[in-house]
């Protein structure tokens, strides 16, 4: 499973968008985290918190405003020749949220999946290309007869499988999954999540899993980062985060999840997050409360959180 080798290092990443002549939206405002080889890193937060922007900036769909992203020790956003860029693109792939919008409806499945193979010259001839596509289709649980069909002939879950096959086609090491299941039905969600887990083991993949469905993120992730308004407010192992959430926003987010359990639901009390609890005079920083558990806090809060954790253990 997860090793200690860092695959991806994100340092003080910033992504600002200009709005109109003067306005600036700080979608991502200085976040840092590492992703280790073979792990699944979950990124959660509400819409507009910058989680998708983070994913898109990491894979260089946007040029970062500031900060660094290192993949295998190499800077992603540095100047690169076309050759280097190609090499990098092959190692990092993305699965998109909407399986209806992310597949070109005028291409058949074979061409959609093989596009990456063609770009990177991974197949020597047509026969090899076809074999590879058929192999991929079977890997994701579709039939090879599906290769000549078009996206409209598939259901949402099947389309998402095609999207996964396309990402796998170039044998990547790292996959960014941006809400890969939120457009799917519950029973189909489990199919896709199980498939992703199985592929991770078989192909030694590392995932960045972006979602707002916290229970699903908990299920698939080894570590989870919680984002709020462009900042990361808490980062910890997924069990630790759910058992000992420290930041008030994380608490509020966790307390808002409805669980399929009427007894629990009757007793659930929701905690509301009030940003004014933080002392604005003190500098907020991302600090490590206990090994592996980071929280964005002021020095006073740091002491408080530390005591809170100690009293619990």
């Amino acid at each position, binding site marked *: 499973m997860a090793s200690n080798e860092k695959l991806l290092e994100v340092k003080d990443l910033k992504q600002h968008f200009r709005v109109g002549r003067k306005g600036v939206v700080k979608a991502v405002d200085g976040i840092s985290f590492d992703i280790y080889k073979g792990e699944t890193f979950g990124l959660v937060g*509400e819409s507009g918190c910058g989680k998708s922007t983070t994913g898109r900036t990491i894979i260089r769909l946007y040029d970062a405003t500031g900060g660094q992203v290192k993949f295998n020790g190499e800077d992603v956003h540095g100047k690169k020749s076309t050759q280097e860029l190609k090499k990098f693109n092959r190692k990092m792939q993305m699965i998109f949220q909407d399986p209806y919008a992310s597949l070109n409806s005028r291409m058949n499945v074979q061409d959609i999946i093989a596009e990456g193979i063609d770009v990177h010259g991974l197949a020597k001839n047509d026969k090899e290309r076809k074999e590879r596509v058929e192999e991929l289709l079977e890997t994701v649980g579709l039939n090879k007869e599906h290769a000549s069909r078009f996206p409209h002939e598939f259901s949402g879950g099947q389309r998402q499988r095609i999207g996964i096959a396309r990402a796998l086609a170039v044998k990547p090491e790292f996959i960014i999954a941006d809400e890969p299941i939120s457009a799917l*039905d519950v*029973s189909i969600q489990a199919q896709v999540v199980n498939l992703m887990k199985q592929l991770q083991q078989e192909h030694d993949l590392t995932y960045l899993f972006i979602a*707002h469905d916290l229970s*699903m993120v908990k299920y698939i992730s080894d570590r989870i980062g919680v984002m709020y308004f462009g900042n990361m407010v808490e980062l910890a192992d997924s069990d630790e985060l759910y058992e000992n*959430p420290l930041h008030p926003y994380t608490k509020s987010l966790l307390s808002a999840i*409805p669980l399929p359990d009427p*007894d629990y639901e009757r007793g659930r*009390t929701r905690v509301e997050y009030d940003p004014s609890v933080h002392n604005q005079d003190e500098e907020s920083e991302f600090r490590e409360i206990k090994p592996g558990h980071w929280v964005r806090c002021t020095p006073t809060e740091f002491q408080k959180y530390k005591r809170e954790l100690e009293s619990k253990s």
Partner: protein
Amino acid sequence: MDKLLDVKDLKVSFNTFSGEVQAVRGVSFDVNKGETLAIVGESGSGKSVTTKALMQLLPKPQGFIKDGQILLEGEDIVQKSEKEMQKLRGQDISMIFQDPMTSLNPTMKVGTQIMEPLIKHQKMSRAKAKERAIELLELVGIPDASTRITQYPHQFSGGMRQRVVIAIALACDPKLLIADEPTTALDVTIQAQILELMKDIQRKTESSIIFITHDLGVVANVADRVAVMYAGKIVEIGTADEIFYNPKHPYTWGLLGSMPTLDNDGYDLIAIPGSPPDMTDPPKGDAFAPRNEYALKIDEELEPPLFKVSDTHYAATWLLHEDAPKIEPPESVKRRMQGIANTGTAPGVAKDGEK
């Protein structure tokens, strides 16, 4: 308890180029006064169509009610003309739609949209309707209501817009409120607020709610009773406790098993294999049989009737027949059911919240 709504053997079909799609194939249920009934199921299971039929908002002319009765306080509304239905909609039955971005009119001020049903149904004067609109906005928790009613939908956030939609639905104190995935488009924290708001309003107005969703967590939160739909039929219906702690239908097992809980370490998610059937040509026998690992031979031949489990709990599966082999729900669903039922523990937060 008083029955407000009684749906009897409702069948809804659509005429399409590829033939008649039987979206709803004989659905019966009732809703008591002041009660919340949740209808769950996958997309295409007919849950939305059922409620559209209640409102007679089926797309005409291809969609039609083929058979059955919808009794609202004893009166069959299937027979009503469009004009009579217009009087009913918004007055006795009103609806909260899924997407607050598209269900409001972007060119009309929010206040005017709330006043519309008041002026139309209750013959209020404009001034009075305006007063009531402000009251309603305050009721749904929108601050600074008197200036907000002069604004347009684009000036509201998603959660606030859904509140406006709820305010419109509530304007005439409807007896029955139909909420079609009202929180699916919203974030969890906003969802929690809207659900609390709806429950709060129900307590005050004693209206009945039909709540459509595919999120079992939301169901556990709001529902008194739950109906599980699959392929145009209700496959299991019962109180929330019966459905969550004593589910009988393999499809319900599948739904529960495919939802991760926060404390399910080590258990695998059970995916329901395959996808729902094509409703132009519904399969013979039990529609769920091809996806059901517990399917019996008889499932391929004969459709199971609703078997009675208790006075309030019914399930349509041959497994409940006295001659059927005894089959326990899959181990992980059972553990999950017990795990949840016994401990009811949630992540550390809930306890913090009590402080």
